[in-house]
């Protein structure tokens, strides 16, 4: 097998960016149907009450908090892998760290949705944000849940930066190849 030039490697890597196959749209349609079904289920839960998720007295936290912890755990794994490889200066690390960082950001985004779904009145979730309201009510800073909210947002901002900054040279390559 002939050794590939960097130019050919770039072409191979960027093929899915410039050519969209029919299979991609089929996958988007199938997965999008799942997302729509989830929104429908969430709407029904908001209308009928959180009891439709099977929770009853005296069990107040269930599936959603479990899922939240699960996805946050996945995102921690991504951060751990990319950080350890970076600290160990492993030269082969780049494709692995990119995967790990993408896992971090997307697992965190998915995990962050679950506390919202868990709330009894999710349309009022913005009361967790410390903003100066006309009634002078702030979030209760003694509550661990408020700090949970802050921690997730800080972690999300950090990991998005961690993903975005190393991806800038790759965007430059895409820009150089783009014709449209």
């Amino acid at each position: 097998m002939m050794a590939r030039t960097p130019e050919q490697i770039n072409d191979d890597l960027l093929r899915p960016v410039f050519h969209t196959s029919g299979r991609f749209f089929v996958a988007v349609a199938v997965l999008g149907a799942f997302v729509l079904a989830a929104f429908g289920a969430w709407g029904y839960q908001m209308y009928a009450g959180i009891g439709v998720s099977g929770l009853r007295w005296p069990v107040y936290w269930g599936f959603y908090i479990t899922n939240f912890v699960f996805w946050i755990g996945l995102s921690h794994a991504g951060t751990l892998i990319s950080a350890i490889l970076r600290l160990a200066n492993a030269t082969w690390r780049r494709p692995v760290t990119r995967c790990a960082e993408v896992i971090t950001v997307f697992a965190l985004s998915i995990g962050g949705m679950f506390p919202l779904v868990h709330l009894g009145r999710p349309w009022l979730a913005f009361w967790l944000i410390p903003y100066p309201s006309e009634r002078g009510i702030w979030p209760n800073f003694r509550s661990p849940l408020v700090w949970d909210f802050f921690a997730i947002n800080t972690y999300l901002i950090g990991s998005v930066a961690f993903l975005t900054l190393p991806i800038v040279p790759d965007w430059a390559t895409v820009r150089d190849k783009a014709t449209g």
Partner: protein
Amino acid sequence: MLCQQCDAAPCEPVCPTYASYHNSEGLNGQVYNRCIGTRYCANACPYNVRFFNFFNPVWDKPLHLQLNPEVSVRPVGVMEKCTFCLPRIKAAEIQAKAENRAVQDGEITPACVQSCPANAMAFGDLNDPSSGVARLAESNRGTKLLEELGTLPKVVYLQRDAWHDGKNT
């Protein structure tokens, strides 16, 4: 069981929106309008005396007529609890203020105290040492539930003692 109205209530510091809070009279208030339904307070409560509206409340006609006009209807997704009949407390206080006097002992009766045929419950001002409820609470028959947790509950349960059992030891 009813809310023990703790002085160091575990439900209060965990609420992210101050829906569960301590009012100036020492009651564990619950602000339904402020509750977003995290259900953290109910998880923190060692007595399990908080109740969540897991479903949208419905009253078929004519049952809607039984709703108390002095108590707000709590919507779905909101935590509720025993308030010691806060509307009755406030009504008595407003009445006393209008008549320019202090609230008298026994003037306020929560619905549970009023409706108990055996007179098994008493309600009053614990801060006033001369009130009937304060004297009952001081008796050595009094116990507080899960006191060892440090929640400082204000509800006192009176045990039978030897004298009442006829043993007179």
